[in-house]
C-alpha cells in the first residue's frame, strides 16, 4: 500500500505523521489519509478538492500531473510526498 509523507512545515499547524494507506490513485490515498485526520484536508486541498495553489505533490519523485482531480496512479509500494511549493511564501 502507498505511503503518504508530509512536509515538516505543516506539522506546527496540524500533525501529519507518515502513514501507509490504501488507494490506487493519489485521490484515493489522500482520502484514506484524511478520513483519519480530517483537519489536515483543508491545509492541503481547497473546498473543491483541488490541490492548493501553492502546495505540491510528488509521486515516487515525479510531480503530480492532475492537480484538480488527483487521478495520478500510485503503485502499491509507492510514496506520495505532500510539500509546500516555493511559490506562495510571500515574506
Amino acid at each position: 500500500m502507498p505511503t503518504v509523507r508530509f512536509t515538516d512545515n505543516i506539522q506546527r499547524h496540524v500533525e501529519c505523521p507518515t502513514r501507509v494507506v490504501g488507494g490506487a490513485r493519489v485521490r484515493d490515498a489522500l482520502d484514506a489519509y484524511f478520513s483519519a485526520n480530517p483537519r489536515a484536508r483543508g491545509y492541503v486541498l481547497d473546498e473543491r478538492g483541488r490541490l492548493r495553489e501553492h502546495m505540491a505533490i510528488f509521486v515516487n519523485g515525479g510531480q503530480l500531473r492532475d492537480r484538480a482531480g488527483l487521478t495520478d496512479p500510485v503503485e502499491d509500494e509507492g510514496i506520495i510526498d505532500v510539500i509546500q511549493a516555493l511559490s506562495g511564501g510571500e515574506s
Partner: protein
Amino acid sequence: MSRASTCHVATRKGLFTVTRGASGWCVSRAAFLGDNCTLTMHDPRTGVLVVALGHGHFGAKLHRSHDEGATWQEIGTPAYPPMPDGYTPKMTHNGKAIDWTLKLVWALAPGGANERGVIWCGTMPGGLFKSEDGGDSWTLNRALWDDPKREMWFGGGADYPGIHSICVHPGDADDVVIGISCGGAWVTRDGGQSWSVGGTGMRAEYMPPEMQFEPNAQDPHQVVQCLANPDALWVQHHNGIFRSTDRAASWSEIKNVNPSAFGFAVAVHPRDAETVWLVPALKDEKRYPADGRVVVNRTRDGGKTFETLTTGLPQQHAYDLVYRHALDIDESGEVLAFGSTTGSLWVTENGGDSWQTVSSNLPPIHSVRFGQSG
C-alpha cells in the same frame, strides 16, 4: 462609557496584544509569530476573540480565543459550495472568472446583541458567510451570492472582489449593510434573505463616464456605521469620502478635503455621527502620506470642515500607509488606534488631539481592533 484597555494588532508576522498600563500603551503579548494574521474580531457579547490567518501555502484559517488571546483553538473555515453543473462564471474586468474557493477572510462582525453565536464573515472572492455557532461552522449567504448583479463585481487592488465591511444595525440585527471592493454598498433588511445594492451618489472615476455613478461598480474602501445613529454611514472610497444619512439609500460626497480625500480607513464616533476620523494618503497611483507626513483628518461637523491632526505623529519622511481595518475607535469615542504598513502603531486617548507611538517596529499591520475595556 469605559475606555478600551486592550488592542489586538494583526500583522504580516503575527498577532500582538497591546495593553494600557500605568505608563501608557505597550505590546504585552505576541501570538502566531511568523504567520500572516489578516484580521481580528472582538465579540463584545462574549469577550471571544477571533483571528483570521492567511497561510500562503495552507489557505485561510480561523482561530478563536476565550481568554483574550492567551490560548487559541482552530475553528471552522468558510467554504464555497461546488459550482452547479453546467455553470460558467462570468469573467471580471481583468479577464479572470470568479473561482468558487476561499481566497481571503476580509471581514468579521458579531451579529446582533440578541444573536449570541452569530458571526458574519466577508470574504474574497465575494461570498458572505454566516455562523450561528460562534464560528464552528459557516453557511454561504446564497441570496447575495446568487444575485446576478454579484457577478458584475470586480477586484479593487486584488484579482477578485471582496466583502470588507459589515455593519450590523445595533437595534435590528436583520438590518445589515456591507461594503464590497468593487461592488458598492449592499443592504439587507431581513437578515440576509434578500439584498439590494444601495442608492446613488458614490462616484467611480475609474469607470467609463456613463457608468461612474453605477452603485454596483463603486469601490468603497471601508463602510462604517454610527452606533447611536445607525442611519448614518461613512465611506472612505477609492475616489473620495462619502456619507449617507438614510442607511445607504443615497450618498453625498465630502469635497475639498486636504491634504487628500484618498485613503482606506475611516472611523465614526459611536455617539456622534458628525464626528469622523480618516487617514489620508496620496491618491491611488501613489498611496503614501502627502509630503511624507502622517496625519489624521477629523471632522466634527459632518464633513463641512476638517482638522488635520499631527501632534505625536511623524512629520518628516514617513511613508506609512494605513489599511482599511487598521484604524479603530473604542466605545468611549476618545480612544483611537491605528497602524501602518511600515509597522508603526499610534494610540490617542483624547480623540486624536495627540498621539502616542506604541511601536515603530512591528511587522506590516493589517488590522487594529480594540478588545476589552476597563
